[in-house]
């Protein structure tokens, strides 16, 4: 036996109480890990300094006329431009079959996002040459069990197919896009804009947004100003930003994740701080006599303090560890359930934050009872007067 074994035994003195505490800490840490991992996945998408995006000044759901794309592509400082349109796609059923399907102009899209579209030439050509072809991120194909060459019916929850009269389009899977960590194509499904545009029943010749490359990042400000001024006071005013700013504002429109994390996790941890702190104080109070006996036997006050603190640390790290494991499971389940979006894995930063918060939680909840045990006089603890 040693001090650590003694701490462990003390921790499990009342198993039900300890289990309930560990469960509550586990849940808080699981929420923390999941939210930080989501934030990490969203904010760590790779960006190019020369890549910019023009979209409607109103918001990104408001389409722009195709003519905007033509004008932007010809503007000074723009190396190459492409355009994208949200399809609102899903496979078979929502929400499990949700897919972020983008109708794109294949050739220019491959130029603007070249670094993330390293696929075999035959797959790229198959996509270019067949208007009904589609490319999907490899994990998406894997998730639904799709094979290259297979024809896949994709439904839209926005548009209607003028050919079939319903909301289904059938696409041939031309290839899959590998999506390493940070890839801009994570979760993507790409289809031909022209095919989509010809067969949709409304909104023709309008596009969602215009990504483009500038000839130099130093020109970004000048180009963005020129574009937005060019369309100022028109029916479709624009807002042009570099890709990083666009991603940030896109995330912001989904909700201020950082604020949500701070509020949700913060309130959870404050509640836990109070619960665990009170319980630890109660646990030490229950052991008043034992603390007195230990001191009588020759355990120094400092050693008793370390043991009580160690116990609260153990509790906090146990909860943090289980929380991280639970988060791992939840993220794996989310990856299996959801179709699109970046695949979220447990972020190393989430683990680091968990360790730091567990350290703080252990210290804060253990400090008062540890000091209480430290200051306890033997004759008071044993009632020996």
């Amino acid at each position, binding site marked *: *036996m*040693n*001090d650590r074994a*003694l701490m462990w*035994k*003390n921790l*499990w*003195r009342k198993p039900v109480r300890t289990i309930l505490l560990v469960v509550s800490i586990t849940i808080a840490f699981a929420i923390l890990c999941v939210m930080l991992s989501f934030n990490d996945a969203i904010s760590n998408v790779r960006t190019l300094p020369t890549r910019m995006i023009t979209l409607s000044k109103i918001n990104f759901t408001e389409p722009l006329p195709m003519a905007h794309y033509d004008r932007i592509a010809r503007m000074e400082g723009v190396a190459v431009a492409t355009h994208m349109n949200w399809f609102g796609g899903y496979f078979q059923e929502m929400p499990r079959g949700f897919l972020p399907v983008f109708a794109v102009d294949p050739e220019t899209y491959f130029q603007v996002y070249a670094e993330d579209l390293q696929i075999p030439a035959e797959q790229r050509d198959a996509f270019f040459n067949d208007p009904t072809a589609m490319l999907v991120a490899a994990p998406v194909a894997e998730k639904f069990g799709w094979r290259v060459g297979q024809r896949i019916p994709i439904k839209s929850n926005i548009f209607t197919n003028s050919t079939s009269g319903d909301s289904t389009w059938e696409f041939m899977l031309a290839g899959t896009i590998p999506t390493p960590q940070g890839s801009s194509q994570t979760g993507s499904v790409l289809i031909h804009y022209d095919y989509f545009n010809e067969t949709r029943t409304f909104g023709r010749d309008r596009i969602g947004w215009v990504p483009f490359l500038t000839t130099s990042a130093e020109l970004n400000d000048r180009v963005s100003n020129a574009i937005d001024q060019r369309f100022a006071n028109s029916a479709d005013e624009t807002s042009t930003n570099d890709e990083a700013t666009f991603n940030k504002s896109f995330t912001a429109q989904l909700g201020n994740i950082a604020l949500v994390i701070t509020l949700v996790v913060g309130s959870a941890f404050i509640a836990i701080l109070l619960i665990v702190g009170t319980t630890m104080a109660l646990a030490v109070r229950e052991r008043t*006599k*034992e603390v007195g*006996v*230990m*001191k*009588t*036997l*020759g*355990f*120094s*006050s400092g050693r008793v303090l370390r043991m009580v603190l160690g116990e609260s640390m153990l509790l906090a790290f146990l909860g943090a560890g289980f929380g991280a494991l639970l988060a791992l499971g939840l993220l794996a389940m989310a990856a299996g359930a959801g179709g699109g979006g970046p695949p979220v894995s447990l972020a190393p930063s989430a683990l680091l934050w968990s360790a730091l918060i567990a350290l703080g939680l252990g210290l804060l909840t253990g400090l008062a009872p540890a000091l209480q045990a430290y200051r306890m006089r*033997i*004759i008071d603890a*044993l009632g*020996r*007067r």
Partner: protein
Amino acid sequence: MTDLIRLTDVEKNYTRGKEKISIFDKLTMRIEQGDFVAIMGPSGSGKTTLLNLLGGTDKADKGAIEFDGKRIDNLNEGQLTAWRAANVGFIFQFYNLMPILTAAQNVELPLLLTKLAPKKRRENVATALKIVGLEDRAKHRPREMSGGQQQRVAIARAIVSDPKLLLCDEPTGDLDRTTADEILGTLQVLNRDLGKTIIMVTHDAQAAKFAKRTLHLDKGRFEQAELAA
């Protein structure tokens, strides 16, 4: 015989509210090495306070307390703690065992303060449990043992680090006569065969008969001061 303990003109006061209560006023006593002394006296006579002073769990206001020729009354908290661990074994009325630990683990507790290797610790624990006749209860928890057995474990815990002095506070106060006599017999063996100096506070005249001598304390003074000094 040499003196193991010597108290000289010890004063101890408590304050209760604004009232100052004098427990000892110039108390003097000495205990020889290998002695087995029973201290009797009515409630409030200062028996437990005396035990606290002798065990270094409380401090005298004035006077000198010597152990084995060295002053302990001027040691600081840390020094007293280390001194207690090395020299004193405590046996309480209600055993005060840790409920979460087995008998062997309870006995091992004082050895965590030493630098003994785990194997040597286990050997010492086994020896201590054998002395009190509980080697077959090593893995039992306190709640699985009778009061007498628990007190034996407490005795094993008190002697495992081989202290010179055993301080017993009503060690049989919670036990029936037969069990109490067994425990007192064990204390006699520790005193006679292992040379432990034992100071036992008790209300029980029968228990006191197991000691070599009895001192009566009343209102902070020994009734026969010449026997104590």
